[in-house]
């Protein structure tokens, strides 16, 4: 399946605060619009996977990209909510910056 489940990869570690890039470019983008530009934290490192943004065009998906489970406060995403739940989204490393940059 082209996947390596390995938590010892990638430049971010669980607990690191990250901001999702607000990118908008042509092509198959694997990060939903509503989460772009938002700040959360790394919940889990899933491992390395073939890049779906390359696979979408029949290419080989290499180099592999580290995929993270990223957590956000619901109130940071939707505003006007006292909901204490987290929102969890799978996001590839090339979509993430260290928070504050």
């Amino acid at each position, binding site marked *: 399946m082209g996947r390596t489940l390995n938590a010892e990869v990638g430049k971010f570690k669980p607990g690191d605060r990250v901001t999702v890039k607000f990118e908008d470019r*042509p092509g198959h983008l694997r990060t939903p619009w509503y989460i772009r530009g938002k700040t959360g934290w790394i919940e889990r490192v899933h491992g390395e996977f073939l890049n779906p943004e390359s696979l979408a065009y029949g290419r080989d998906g290499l180099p592999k990209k580290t995929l993270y489970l990223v957590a956000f406060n619901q109130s940071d995403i939707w505003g006007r909510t006292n909901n204490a739940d987290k929102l969890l989204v799978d996001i590839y490393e090339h979509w993430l910056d260290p928070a504050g940059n």
Partner: protein
Amino acid sequence: MARGHHDVGGLPGAGPIDQTEYQLSDWEVLADAVNQALGAKGIKRTDEMRRAREEMDSAAYRDMTYYERWIASIEAILIEKNILTKDEIDRKLREFDAKWGEP
């Protein structure tokens, strides 16, 4: 660029999600089978199917049901990979229509 027609998470006005059980039609089960078979043979990948749906005409995308989008994506990918031509698909459709279509 703007947000794609497929990328509607969090948009207001969508209303509540219909959570009633849905009975699949035979053609929808067949669409799933064709999709699985093409994947198992390495002819297409899920990411290509997603990209094909994103590239569709937005009005057509919104008008289609879930499995209609699947079928349209499969058609687009098979044509793109030169496995079938649009003419071949249209010819077969006319054959089916003559055989089983409304008189």
